[in-house]
């Protein structure tokens, strides 16, 4: 559904590249996370993919469309929700959606139905300038879904949302995935990526440094240890056992046979720990 090959971009049109040799493929119905700290090249890559920046070098294909030679009909198949909501503050939420719905050449979802789905029905006829940041974020997400897109670009979709709204948005994203929508999710929130993404790419200084499923990355870069909570004489004792060591394996077996183990946690790495291990810097 999405093919990116040897993508380069230089804002100064010189040898200093903000995006360097970026390549990946995304299959239909996949949620692909693009993780990296601010300034790593996430937004630049997404802008090139969505036609907001000209393609300088490389190849980008979305749903069969070469984005180097854009036919604007491709935007009937794409939905984009930016991190900054980009809404008309002086129009109501409903008017914002009605305007955008009218721009598509394909059947669109009823704007009111989308507002209801994102818990914005009560604010439908209020000016967007009176919305909270979270409400604006949800309205921008609703706008990106108007045309039933085949490909959805989401930039920090849960940023600024309260836990309940964030959960609702994540459910909606999963729902879209089950409908076969391909989702390109740009974020620096590792929890969102771990929860939603089938695969993630880590981008640092314009280059992809790792690309795999969150599970594989965590296993590859984590340690094979277990955190055990064991009850001894009425007290809880914590210990870490390495599955690669014979003594530790025997110790675990003995504890299990004694029936004193209360909890067992695997000690695989977090995505953030993997990113730090790969780049020497954090995601924030």
């Amino acid at each position, binding site marked *: 559904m999405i093919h990116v090959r040897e993508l380069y971009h230089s804002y100064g049109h010189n040898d200093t590249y903000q995006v360097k040799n970026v390549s990946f493929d995304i299959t239909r119905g996949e949620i692909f996370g693009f993780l990296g700290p601010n300034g790593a090249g996430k937004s630049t890559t997404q802008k090139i993919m969505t036609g907001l920046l000209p393609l300088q070098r490389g190849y980008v294909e979305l749903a069969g469309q070469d984005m180097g030679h854009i036919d604007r009909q491709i935007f009937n198949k794409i939905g984009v929700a930016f991190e900054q909501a980009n809404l008309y503050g*002086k129009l109501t939420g409903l008017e914002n959606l009605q305007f955008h719905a009218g721009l*598509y050449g394909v059947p669109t979802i009823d704007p009111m139905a989308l507002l209801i789905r994102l818990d914005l029905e009560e604010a439908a006829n209020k000016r967007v300038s009176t919305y909270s940041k979270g409400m604006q974020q949800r309205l921008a997400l609703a706008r990106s879904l108007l045309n039933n897109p085949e490909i959805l670009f989401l930039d920090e979709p849960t940023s600024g949302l309260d836990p309940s709204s964030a959960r609702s948005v994540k459910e909606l994203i999963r729902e879209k995935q089950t409908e076969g929508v391909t989702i390109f999710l740009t974020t620096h929130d590792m929890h969102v990526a771990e929860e939603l993404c089938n695969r993630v790419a880590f981008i640092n200084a314009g280059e992809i440094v790792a690309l795999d499923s969150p599970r594989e990355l965590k296993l590859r870069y984590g340690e094979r240890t277990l955190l055990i909570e064991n009850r001894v004489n009425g007290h809880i004792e914590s210990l870490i056992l390495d599955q690669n060591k014979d003594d530790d394996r025997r110790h675990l077996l003995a504890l299990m046979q004694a029936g004193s183990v209360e909890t067992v946690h695997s000690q695989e790495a977090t995505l953030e720990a993997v990113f730090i291990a790969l780049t020497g810097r954090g995601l924030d």
Partner: protein
Amino acid sequence: MLKRLWVSLKRDFKMNLTNGYLLITVAVALLYMLVVRFAVPEQLSTSARLYLYDATTEQTMANYAQSFGEEQAVLVYGETELTELMAENENSVGLILTEGDPLPQVRLVFQAAQGEQIQQLMLASLESELRALYGVEASDIEVSTRLLNETYSEPIPFNKGLVTVLLYSDPVMIGLLFVAALYFVERQQGTVKAYLVTPGRVWEYVLAKAVSLGLLALLFTLILVPFTVGSGVNYAALLTLVFMGSILSSLVGTLLASFYTDLGQFFAPGVLVILFLSLPGISYYVPSFSPWWLRLHPTYSMLFGMKEALFPSGNPQIIVSGVLVLLALDIVMLAVSSLALDRQFVRR
């Protein structure tokens, strides 16, 4: 495409409403209407310089002219000279005396733009002197008017003449500033970015804004003109010219806005461009000043087309040329401003 244009137009009209543009337009139109009707006189001045040509043997008029002083009366030595001097000074009147039997023939020459009021005043002020000098009665004086400009069919009262300039300078030219303000607000909100990831084209986006401001210009015209100039106006031609002129101004504003990041930077060059576009106004007030380079000015034919539509003189070709020039300029400017906005403003 038409559906996208329509929804964009609806959005921009709502924005004009919420931004207060509609309210400003209606308020200014009403204010101008009241000023034109009740504050500006029909005739700015009733005193005019008198050019005297005395072709009689007695030359009695020489003394008469001296009694007025040079500021008010000038003695000339031929009808040609009198005509030339009158052409240079629109606020002047000519008096020609020729031999007659038994009384000299008296002929008064007025400018085409001088109304009935000034003619009556001049006749009344000269009558007693002419009776004393020659025994000539007012009824014996021959009155003729000299056509200064072929487009004049009848004098245009000063206050009504002002309507042309108000239409030209306000709803038409102000679109340049309005459209720039709209772009800078939208750029700040990032809504242009959201538009660019839809099938909508940049030229549709540009045209919708220009048309929405063009509709405001039409509203302004329909408030001001019926209550000032009234009947006799070629409304179809006038509305066409105002609408197309407003679109041209908005497109020029779009092009200019594409080079700047905010209204503060835009303001000074914007005002300079408005001044440049307003240059043909000089010819409107000083008809004898219309050099070839001013006639080539992009808005010259628009201004005089609007004048012809407001005060028809039987020269519809002025309107036709105004519409054709505007149509060509609108098409060129739509292409240029859309390209500039796409490359330099939106993608910056």
